[in-house]
């Protein structure tokens, strides 16, 4: 895995973003650059630090009060989520939000269509799928995440949590993303499942050639797969650096882990 070089245009960049909900500042002057080079980064921080809100801003679901969002150098602030998706920034949600009454294949196919659709983006051509192009993309994505073919016709409520997460990732992957934002993908999984997920993410980053950014609470997991970590608390970016940097960082330790520093 190559370390990101400074002169590469970042896949996704946030400049001085502010997000306010009523009286609460959820994201407070956060700037970060998500590199384009393949690999894995992570965002960590206590609950309520604003991590998911950050994802929401990056994917156009929430409009920041001020600040800029740049995708591959282009200003995409205030663009709709589907435009961001077509700009090859994909994400998953906490808890694995799949469409409950569609099969696994159809769940993924729904997303695949908008990327391959000719004609005006977001127009009625999305209602048709000539040449089965979306289906091929969907099946390719499902293969990519290693989901057994047997499960492709099954409905989400018959899958395990890990399998649902995989489907969600496959759905995101149909955009052939440059950046893949995963919101707590390992939450609720047991150790063996987490290992499998990590192996997949590492492999996925290189095979698709994208930068994966995970929000995670499992420190061991984060330290083992992420090359670069951002730490957030109270809506602010506390620190960023390599795992070693973060481990040694006093402010992080105090904010996130309490004043005890028994996490080595």
């Amino acid at each position, binding site marked *: 895995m190559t370390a990101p070089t400074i002169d590469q245009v970042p896949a996704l960049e946030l400049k001085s973003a502010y997000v306010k909900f009523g009286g609460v500042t959820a994201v407070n002057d956060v700037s970060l650059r998500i590199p384009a080079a393949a690999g894995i980064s992570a965002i960590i921080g206590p609950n309520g630090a604003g991590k998911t809100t950050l994802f929401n801003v990056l*994917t156009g*679901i929430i409009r920041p009060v001020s600040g800029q969002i740049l995708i591959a150098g282009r200003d995409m602030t205030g663009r*709709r*989520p*589907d435009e961001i*998706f*077509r700009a090859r920034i994909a994400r998953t*949600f906490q808890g694995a*939000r799949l*469409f*409950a*009454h*569609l099969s696994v294949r*159809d769940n993924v*196919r*729904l*997303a695949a*269509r*908008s*990327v391959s*659709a000719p004609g005006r*983006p*977001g*127009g*009625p051509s*999305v*209602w*048709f*799928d000539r040449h089965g192009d979306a289906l091929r993309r969907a099946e390719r994505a499902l293969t990519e995440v*290693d989901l*057994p073919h*047997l*499960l492709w016709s*099954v*409905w989400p*409520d*018959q*899958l*395990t949590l*890990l*399998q649902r997460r995989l489907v969600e990732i496959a*759905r995101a992957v149909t955009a052939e993303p440059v950046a893949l934002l995963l919101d707590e993908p390992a939450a609720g999984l*047991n150790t*063996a*499942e987490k*290992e*499998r997920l990590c192996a997949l993410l590492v492999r996925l980053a290189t095979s698709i050639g994208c930068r994966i950014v995970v929000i995670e609470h499992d420190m061991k997991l984060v330290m083992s797969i992420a090359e670069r970590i951002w730490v957030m608390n109270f809506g602010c970016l506390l620190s960023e650096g390599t795992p070693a940097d973060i481990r040694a960082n006093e402010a992080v330790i105090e904010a996130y882990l309490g004043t005890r520093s028994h996490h080595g």
Partner: protein
Amino acid sequence: MAAGSLEALVTVQLIYLIAALGHYLPLSMKQLDIGIAGYFAIGAYTSAYLTRDCDMSFTVALLAGAILAGAGAFVVDALATRVRLSGFAYAIFSLSFAESLRIILNNVEALGASGGLVGIPPDTTLPLVAIIAAAVVAGFWWFDRTRLGHLRTAIADDEFIVPIFGVPLVATKLTIFAIGGALGGLAGGLYSHYVLFIRPDDFGFALLIALQLPMVFGGLDRFYGAVAGMLLLGFIPEFVRVLAQYRLIVMAAATLLVLIMRPSGLITHQTIAWLRSGCRRSANERTKVGLSSDPSS
């Protein structure tokens, strides 16, 4: 046609089934478009006027009624979406449309006003209705498997994330609503050419109840539930002679009871999966394991 005869019962219930399925489309997407009686009325009056006073063929009149009703649904829902009405307000708005239409019809002399429209040519027959109803049900089965059908399911499941995948949410919803309204109009046209005499008061709240309650009773999860509900609550009280005048009360009581105990209605997709096959279910149970015993990993 002898009113009250078995044939009349079946025909009218099948017509209601078609209209109800039209109503099912917005309902399943959690859109409380309850102006369905209005779309039914548009279809009934338009087609009747065209065959009776304009000498058009039945087919053309039916289609015209359906298209006009679909357009009506489109307009009503487009307006409501434009103003971003919440669920309840949406319901009231669509209801006001249907009721206003009814009151206006009560005053339009060319359409018989409150006295009603008589002398409608008896073009509807049971075989015709049965074929159309079967076609609509089959059409729904097919629709669920098309792209637009998938979108409907997705919107019904989780409207929030659908736009993220590049789907034009509003255009899609409005199109589906229009299709629903058109089905209601089609049913209305069949209705007026069967009962041969229609009055604006026929298309009031009672009609809405007859169309909506059985569907919610049957379950909105899959359209099979709506069909089952319409058949159960529509047909059974009719056939058991002694229950005839208790029809509405039976319908209401049954719906109330079912909803209290099982808010999702009688039939959900789990019921269907259970009914379908035990073997396919247990096969999935076997694959429903994590890493440790996953043979294909």
